[in-house]
């Protein structure tokens, strides 16, 4: 196909993309000039100065620590639940592909704001939201992995009269398990970031603390929360990397 890709198509695509870029900048009117007036620079300076003085009082640190733990729990539980759902889908329900696409297309934050109406403020809504979105993502990845694997082992067992469940457990699943685990871990790294921000709509965790203190202009406290987020994200990245390495 590449050999006959006409130059014209490339040129056309390039023109379209350039037009998109120009139109984007034109319609957004970012007013970058305004940011560099003396006043706004001074305001920015004040903002940054307060931000680099995190609030490290023991009481507040305890609050942040609990928020961190909650965020961690939301990401871990939702990833695990989504993995289970994804596996069930991949085993028995390849017909739900369109549902998976909808689950995937609606962002976690939108799911969270919808679920808040149902289950109220707090980490439960956030966990459910992450679970729904992640189930969509993992379900599709799992389905594809299981479909694209070599069929030899499954064929051999089916030829010996094994049931579909037995073929799944003894041939299809073990064959792709490392791949599925790796997808799941990547998704966890993604979910820890998402869990850290779901709170801005009221779904618990560090995000809730962050948006609360920002609203009160307590920048020192906000900065502590950002630091905690950074720490948590880095830790989960390292942990997930480690697990992947150990399993690989």
């Amino acid at each position, binding site marked *: 196909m590449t050999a006959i890709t006409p130059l014209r198509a490339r040129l056309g695509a390039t023109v379209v993309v350039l037009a998109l*870029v120009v139109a*984007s900048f034109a319609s957004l009117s970012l007013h970058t000039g305004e940011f560099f007036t003396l006043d706004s620079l001074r305001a920015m300076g004040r903002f940054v100065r307060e931000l680099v003085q995190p609030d490290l009082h023991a009481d507040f640190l305890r609050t942040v620590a609990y928020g961190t733990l909650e965020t961690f729990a939301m990401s871990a539980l939702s990833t695990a639940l989504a993995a289970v759902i994804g596996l069930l889908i991949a085993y028995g329900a390849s017909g739900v592909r369109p549902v998976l696409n909808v689950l995937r*297309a609606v962002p976690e934050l939108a799911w969270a704001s919808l679920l808040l109406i149902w289950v109220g403020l707090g980490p439960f809504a956030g966990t459910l939201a992450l679970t729904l979105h992640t189930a969509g993502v993992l379900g599709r990845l799992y389905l594809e992995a299981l479909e694209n694997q070599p069929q030899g082992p499954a064929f051999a067992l089916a030829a010996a009269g094994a049931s579909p469940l037995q073929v799944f457990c003894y041939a299809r699943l073990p064959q792709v398990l490392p791949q599925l685990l790796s997808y799941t871990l990547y998704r966890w790294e993604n979910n820890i970031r998402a869990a850290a921000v779901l709170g801005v709509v009221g779904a618990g965790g560090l995000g809730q603390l*962050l948006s609360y203190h920002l609203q009160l202009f307590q920048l020192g406290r906000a900065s502590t929360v950002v630091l905690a987020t950074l720490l948590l994200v880095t830790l989960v*990245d390292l942990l997930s990397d480690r697990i992947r390495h150990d399993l690989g």
Partner: protein
Amino acid sequence: MTALPSRGTDPAGPGRLLAVILTGLLVWALLRLTEFHLAVLFDPTSADAMRGFLAGFLPPALAPAFLLEVLRQTWLTVAMATCGLVLALALGVPAALVLTRVLSLSALGQSLQRASPAGRGGRALLRLLLVFLRSVPELVWALLLVRVVGLGPAAGVFAIAITYSGMLAKVYAEMFEAADPGPVVALLRQGSGRLQAFAFGLLPQCADELISYTVYRWECGVRTSVVLGFVGAGGLGQMMDQSLKMMQANEVTTLLLMFVLLVGLADLISHGLRRVWA
């Protein structure tokens, strides 16, 4: 029966048992921490609230004025992602070039690990900065930026630009490092400048991957910019946030449909671009 080997039981048994117990404890702790009570879903008051809301979902809001606004905000969402990505490229590409050791002049003629101390220190610092940029979630950047530049798409654009420049720089640098250094070194030895060496030695090798990853990032950017609206960066997210706060369920339906459509469209465009270019 033939003689049995000495090991009659599964040596992995105790380990598996321990793993099951630990997993059980962990899940219990996680359920407690996340206040996971499925019963809440079926609690009469909350279920009624949801049912009332769901009842309003259909039919979707299709008033022409509303639809027009949705389209306008959809475009803003796409524009936000596009501007964010362009700015991210402006920051990320130079950073990636600096990080690429093959392009280091001080290392020329020595082994690649032997760049000057200043060069190495600078690169380590830059790398750290980039990790910081991409590890703070986009939404947190947006929340902070909204305080600085006010409500509106600018906060979203900069949030995307900041996070994505960190990601782009990292991934680009990895691609450059994975390429064959031969052509670059040859050019540098002839005395050509770094940019020339990059353009003629490195770029042709990685062009396809670069384009493919950049287009993919744009696709992610569209998703992200939807989300950023929830904290006041404009676009579809902000509309959805407002409709939810006003409990306008039928508007939410329209917006959700638009999300799905937009994500699907971005997916299509990105596939198309990758096919034509890469």
